[in-house]
Structure formats: C-alpha cells, structure tokens
C-alpha cells in the first residue's frame, strides 16, 4: 500500500542484492516541512490549524492521511504536509498558507515556525527486509516490540544524522538533510 503522505516518483534506488525481493528504496517527492518550536501550550494551539495534534510524548508521531507531526524534542516538532499537486510551486503555496494559518492560530503566543521543506529528503525503505537492512547502519533495536509502528526518533545512520520513522510494520521513512541522502543511499546499496 503506497503511503498517501509520501506520493513518490516511480523510480526506485539500488539496494544490496542480499536484501531480497519485495523490499524497495525510493526518494519521496517534495513535501512541505516545518520545524515548530515552542512550549507545550504553544504546541497545543498548532494542532487545530495544522489538522494534526502535536504529540507530547517522546518519540511519538501523529498523523492523518496527508499530514503528520513528529516529536523531535520536548520543544521541537517536525510537521509534514503533502501538497495537492506535485511540484515546488504547490509546495511554496501550501507552505505559505499553512504558515499563515498556524501564525494566526498562535496569535501572541511565543513560538518559532521555520520552513524547512527543502532541508530534507524523505527516503522510503519498505518491505520485509527493511528493518534488517536498516540494522546494517542504524544501531537501534528495530524489533516491533522495541520500536513500534509510529515511533520516530533522530538517530545516526553510520555517520549521518537521520530522523527514523516507522510508518508501518515493514515500512520506514528516513528523513535526512538533502546533502546526506547520497551517503545514506550508498550505504543501503552496499549492506
């Protein structure tokens, strides 16, 4: 089942042949991304405007079909939103309107909302071999009991910092800074 948040180009990237059939790696299309920073009270006001509540528990995520809010730290969230159409203009437009709506909802409440749409690339690693392949480079315990669906965390992928989000039992989204994506992809092809 393709994830409706990350509509992706059909092109898939190379994976180590050891991974086996049914597991794939793709770069997701451009998304709207914001870093929201502020206290819990400010975060609580964002939910209504953004359409997804900002999770207060560590390492938690909240999502509707095409929007998601990922906990990054006690005062930091990564907000993801898919524009109705592909392309940077649609991303610009959605980012602009969302920024306006969130700012309006917060009024005078101190906070920081920064557009980082292009700071990241989302890599979608999906399939039965995904967790095992990730463990070639990520030291976290990815057993579903230890890293359940919905868990999200910043961590290290060998020497690159990533945001790792388990979107379903077999599917992971890796958010990394754009210039680190070739490094992550290169290692996944080598494992």
């Amino acid at each position, binding site marked *: 089942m393709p994830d409706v948040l990350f509509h992706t180009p059909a092109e898939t990237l190379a994976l180590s042949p050891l991974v086996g059939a049914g597991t794939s790696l793709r770069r997701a299309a451009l998304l709207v991304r914001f870093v929201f920073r502020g206290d819990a009270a400010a975060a609580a006001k964002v939910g209504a405007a953004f359409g997804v509540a900002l999770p207060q528990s*560590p*390492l938690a995520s909240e999502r509707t079909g095409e929007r998601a809010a990922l906990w*990054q*730290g*006690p005062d*930091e969230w990564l907000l993801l939103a898919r524009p109705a159409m592909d392309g940077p203009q649609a991303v610009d437009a959605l980012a602009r309107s969302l920024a306006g709506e969130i700012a309006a909802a917060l009024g005078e409440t101190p906070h920081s909302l920064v557009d980082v749409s292009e700071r990241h690339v989302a890599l979608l690693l999906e399939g039965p071999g995904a967790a095992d392949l990730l463990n070639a480079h990520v*030291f*976290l315990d990815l057993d579903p009991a230890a890293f359940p669906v919905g868990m999200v*965390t*910043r*961590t*290290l992928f060998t020497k690159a*910092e990533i945001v790792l989000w388990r979107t379903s039992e077999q599917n992971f989204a890796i958010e990394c800074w754009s210039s680190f994506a070739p490094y992550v992809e290169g290692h996944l092809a080598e494992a």
Partner: protein
Amino acid sequence: MLLIHCPCCGVERPEIEFRYGGEAHIARPMQPADLDDHQWAEFLYMRTNPKGVMAERWRHVHGCGRFFNALRDTVSDRFIAVYKTGEPRPDSATASGEGAR
C-alpha cells in the same frame, strides 16, 4: 560503547548520540563584570576533576537535542543518575533508577 539514559526521551541510547559537555553546576555569573580577575579565571578554567562520582553535562545531540546532567563514576565509568538541567544534583548514595543501570 556506553549506553546513556536520556531523561527527556526516556530511553537508553549509545553514547555516540551524545556529546559530553564538561562539569555540571557551574553557573555563568549573572554579572560577570562584578567578578575580579581571579574569580573570573576560577569560573572559566577551574574544575573539580574528581576520581569518583562527578556531575557532568551531556547533550543528546543526535536525539532530542537537550542538555541534561548526569552523575558518573569516573573510575568505573558507570552512570549513577541522570537528571534534567536545572534540577538539583541527586544524592549519589541514594541515586537509582534507570540511569543507574
């Protein structure tokens, strides 16, 4: 590789997700100009460097990004307690909990 319990994330992570931040509980003076040269040098450079339990700062730099404090035994390399920035130093004799593992 040590495991360090992050009090903000509530989980243990390998030490390479963290950065060491030096000795804890050395507050920057509110009015630096009021300190004489000797006092200012003490603040800048003098550290306790104990053999044994030390309160030190860590930052979960590749995780939640937060600074926190920890009691660590510099002889055994064991973490005795972790606590959030701003909280008082726990009594190392009675400290326990997840950070003590």
